[in-house]
């Protein structure tokens, strides 16, 4: 599994770190965040250091699954840990372009954080996968 790293500077209106749709809701301008999109290539069966390195305060990571057609148990566990780590450093990680088979893997795995990363209803935003 490898990844492609793209870095976009985004303004806060859709990507505020507190998750609000428009800034942080108190009239103050939203914090400018960096969004890094990383495309996963091939099967996800272990951790990817470049993804972990991308985490940081003020950085949102978008994992693009369009070229990922298999996730192993280790891969699932790593994703779960990644989301925990992201949460602890103030990053938000979202998953995009997930194929239905892999999306179903998330559904059947019953791991709420993974579903949330896909934008499940609990997250209050429309699904992105």
């Amino acid at each position, binding site marked *: 599994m490898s990844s492609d790293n793209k870095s976009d500077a985004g303004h806060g209106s859709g990507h505020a770190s507190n998750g609000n749709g428009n800034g942080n809701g108190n009239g103050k301008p939203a914090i400018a965040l960096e969004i890094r999109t990383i495309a996963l290539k091939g099967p996800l069966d272990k951790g990817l250091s470049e993804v972990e390195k991308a985490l940081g305060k003020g950085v949102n990571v978008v994992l693009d699954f369009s070229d990922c057609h298999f996730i192993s148990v280790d891969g699932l566990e790593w994703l779960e840990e990644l989301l925990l780590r992201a949460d602890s450093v103030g990053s938000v990680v979202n998953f995009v372009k997930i194929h239905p*088979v892999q999306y179903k*893997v*998330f559904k*059947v*795995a019953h791991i709420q954080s993974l579903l949330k990363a896909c934008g499940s209803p609990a997250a209050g935003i429309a699904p992105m996968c």
Partner: protein
Amino acid sequence: MTTTISKEQEKALSEGVEILVRQARLAAAVWLQYTQEQVDEIVKAMTTAAIEAASELAIEAHQETHMGIIEDKMLKNFVASEFHYHQIKNVKTVGIIKEMPEDNMVEVAEPIGVILALSPVTNPTSTVIFKSIAAAKTRNSVIFSSHLMAANASNHAAKIVYEAGLAAGAPKGFITWVEKSARLRRGTELMMNHPEVDLIFATGGTQMVRAAMSTGKPALGVGPGNTPVYIHKSAPPSSAAMDVIISKTFDNGTECPSEQTIVVDREIAEELLAEFKRLGCYICSFEEVEKIADVVIDSKGGMNYKCVGQSANFIADLAGLDVPADTKILLCPLGGDIRNHRLAVEKLMPVLGYVIVDSVEEGINRALDVNYAGGTGHTAGIFSEDEAVVEQFSTAINAGRIIVNSPCCIGGLGGIYNNLNTTLSFGCGTGGGNNTSDNVGIKNLLNYKRVPKRTNFTLSFQTTKNIYINPGSLDHLRSLKTKSAVILTSKSAGKRGHLAMVTERLPSDCAIGVFAEIDVEPEFSTVESALAMLRQQKPDTIIALGGGSVLDAAKIIRLFYDHPYLNMNELAVSFLDFRHRMVEFPQTVNTQLVAIPTTSGTGSEVTPFAVLKDNVNKRKISLIDQCLLPNFAIIDANLTKCLPKDITADTAFDALTHALESLVSTYASDYTDGLALESMRLIFEALPEALKNPSNIVWRHKLHNASCLAGMAIGNASVGINHALAHSLGALFDVPHGRSNAVFLLSVLDYNSRVPRKFMPTSTYPSWVADQKYARAAQFLGLTDPGPVDTSGKFSKRELESHKHARLCKELQRAVYDLAITCNQPISISELGIDPDAYEMQMLNLVKLSFSDMSLRTNPSLPVLSEIGGLLVNSFAPRQRP
């Protein structure tokens, strides 16, 4: 014995359970991505590993449980791996697993998810091997919780197949197990109730299975066995004895399908017992039987677990019996009432009860006694060369597997002596408290998704085979092949000269009879009278000469003449879907039927319908079948020249209703549309002219053709709500059919042209097009869209089209209104002289009759009761021009 667990231990146990369940959950999720090829490679690797470890695991199982026979345990390991694999290797379990082209459907596999598998002490390693392979083949993950007394061997088996599967690419954690400990049972309880466990697959003792089934979770269980085997006198004693010995000694009798009591015909009993003895079994005396019962049956009436899987000699020693060394089975005669005998229960050991009987009936009854003494639904066996006896036995006994002329135990395992699917888990059906009586296997470890595609529906087009048209076509009668004909007609046919026109054209050597008693809307009594006449005359031809009532009656008369055994009430049973109707009409009719309509409305000469009135129940009975179609139809307008104006208009409006209803019917096709449109056009063209010049044959001919064309249309597309309303009005108020149709026509046109409240659910009608059809009809009549067309841009193209259709529908309604006014045709109920109060009083009956009329079922919209009521009300008051 209850083990108390501290809070810390409970917490540790719960955490351990969470870990196991989570591993299984993740593996179950990851399995979803595997292809059939990947799964099959994994299963092959697991099977290979199991075969290679078969003897090692057999030894371990025997050492740990102290039960059974190593060699037989090894055999079971082979059955669970090699035999099992052989049966399932080519079975599809991923994606589309079954295609059913005849049903336009496929089946797609969906794994169960996480399976908690409980394995027994009697078949520890073979059960684990079997369930592991089955779980992998179906992309499920499995957590094993084994019997405490066999946990080490069981878990070792699980480890072997797991590691082989993992090496071949299976998801990590797809097989896990509960380690042997004093808290194994508590751990199992926690897992049984864990929300992440999707299915409990329980194989074991009754208590364990019952616990699994009572969790409220989907569970596959097994039941206790108590196998009765009937040995019929036709069975060769030598092979029966050997087979029973093979079975009952297999793993020292620990297999639950093994024989527990044999029921032997007296004729062969002596020889059979001698053979048992010769082959190394010990026949006990009654006194010895009691001693055996004392040791093998516990105080609660069940088997003593200390004896389970022990040798015959071990048990004999326990009972204080002196039997030869290497005795294979202790055979125990069960005296007295077998239902009360202590030994007539499951005994997983080489102790076999027997009774001797004097007949097949007694044999089956004694077998039933055993069957219903704790092993219902499990297994039974029969040795017989008489197929009738085998069938009788199989019908009576309640067992998921009834093994014939083979060892029950190994026969029940499947794949060795027969083609049952191999299993180590025997479903017992509801008799044993299970939800299946299968040899449980991969088939039970999948969810099946059925994907039915919309059924293609083949419409057919059928009509009277030979139709002779044009004025003068009555001359065809001259060449009719008939020696004896009966003319069915009404009294007026004679007065109008129609009867003479027919009789003088029939062949000179034809014997002619006439039945002229058919009135308008006849009842069955008229049919019966006609039949009496026909049975005397015995004609080869029936000639129906008259309006719709005569033609319909003639069809029914011909049917009952050819098939006197038929029951009218049965034939008249209603149906929702013609393809599924209950009633079966005869395939053929023999008597030739010639239909000669003398009115231009019914179309009955070319339809498979016949309607009779039922005055007793105030309803109309409709018979519908292709066998009712006449052989010939003669469409000669000369017969209609003398029709009074009111009947001309009534019948023409009947034909117009046919045309309009068939056009929008859910069974309409391009074939019937063409007929309907031309019929309608002819009526609009010819009716006013025919009323102005009644004797002008050209207009009469067009009307007569229009009627026949519309008849062909409804004969294939059927009618709709207009007819349902007309039938009910006609039945309750004696209104002629054509007139009944006319008074509802405008309301129905308006109703059917609007978007339905409820669409008609039928596969023959892919989209609602009634408005388009009416619009086309309007255009076919030369009517144009009055506009205006909205150019504001507010509406989509589709909406603008809809508006245009609505305008044209209105034009059509105006055209029908204008035609009716021109022809002085009543188009509302108030014009029929029906008292409004009387009408109101009958409203409920009208609604009920209309609602249950079959005509409704091909209407383009499904009318709800309130809409039917609305139409009935709406059609009463005098009409305004739409």
